């Protein structure tokens, strides 16, 4: 755009006017309320989604760690207990005698 005035000549004003018209259209498009509103909406959407993603991540982190603390040991221990019970049952059925040793345990 800075080179245009140096050329001089007749065509310059036409070109200028054409460029002006173009820029006018572009400007009109870019400055039209629809586009600016769209841009705003996109910005808002990006902002909200970023925030949402972050808060979802945080919530997932909290929920995950809470689960790790509260439920995981419980599940493991329940499983162990069940295994012990099964083992005892097996032993009882193999020996045929009442499992007195396991009762005292």
């Amino acid at each position, binding site marked *: 755009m800075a080179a245009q005035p140096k050329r001089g000549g007749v065509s310059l004003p036409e070109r200028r006017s054409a460029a002006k018209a173009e820029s006018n259209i572009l400007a009109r498009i870019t400055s039209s309320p629809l586009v600016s509103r769209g841009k705003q909406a996109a910005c808002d959407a990006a902002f909200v989604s970023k925030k949402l993603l972050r808060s979802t991540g945080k919530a997932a982190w909290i929920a995950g760690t809470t689960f790790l603390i509260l439920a995981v040991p*419980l599940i493991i*221990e329940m499983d162990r207990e069940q295994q012990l019970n099964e083992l005892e049952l097996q032993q009882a059925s193999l020996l045929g005698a009442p499992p007195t040793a396991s009762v005292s345990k």
Partner: protein
Amino acid sequence: MAGLVPPGATAIPAEASKTAHTKAEEKTDYMNLPCPIPFEELQREALMSLKPETFEGLRFDFTKGLNQKFSLSHSVFMGPTEIPSQSAETIKIPTAHYEFGANFIDPNLMLIGRVLTDGRVNARVKWDLTDNLSLTNEPHMSHGMVNFDYKGKDYRSQFQMGNGALFGASYIQSVTPHLSLAGEVFWAGQHRKSGLGYAARYETDKMVAAGQVASTGMVALSYVQKVSEKVSLASDFMYNYMTRDVTASVGYDYILRQCRLRGKIDSNGCTTAYLEERLNMGLNFILSAEIDHSKKDYKFGFGLTVG
């Protein structure tokens, strides 16, 4: 068999005379009420499952019984301890200490002494006559306290005296076989404070509900549901009228053959778990975890208990 009859026969008039002058207006149906639990243990089931002693770092406890009544205990603790501060952030400094204790436990007399390497000394004496006397002594903080307990047939009363002109009295009475009501009065002369509190406890073999109100503005309610022999669920609610803080928490308590597991979550987002795993006879492994997301305070500890 004939020799067993006279003690029973003599015991009945003694009990009858005792109950007759304490509560003459009660019906005959209510003469044989069970003895209530001590006032300070009113919420013990809920506290047992909701307030496990979480710690951070390493701990090792060793108890050696020298004979039936006398035992020595050694315990080592290493890890960061919190310092109370005004700011919201918690400040922790690493500490390590060793504790030596000697216990003498007899059905009538209980002597417990503890010495820490940082100079704290703790002593407890409990002497059961008909009334029992307990004394706690802590020279560094200069805490001394004497309790006189009187255990009646269906009531307990306690009188407390501490240094700093601290006086307290409490009384708990069984009203029905399940319900007991209690009241307490305390007066702290040093701080010029006095207060009055009431409590109630309802207990069946499936659930325990307890409530406590004090004139300091504290309201504490707790409920424990025993789902089975092994499992109990507990919840509690605390409200302080003066400072306006409210906390509620829900927890579980699993007593399995190999371990005991307690977990809790409260309304501040603080999650706690405490696992005691029995590795062998007399050898327990402890894992403790506490995470507080709002304060960014995470505490994990492990330990071993021998003996």
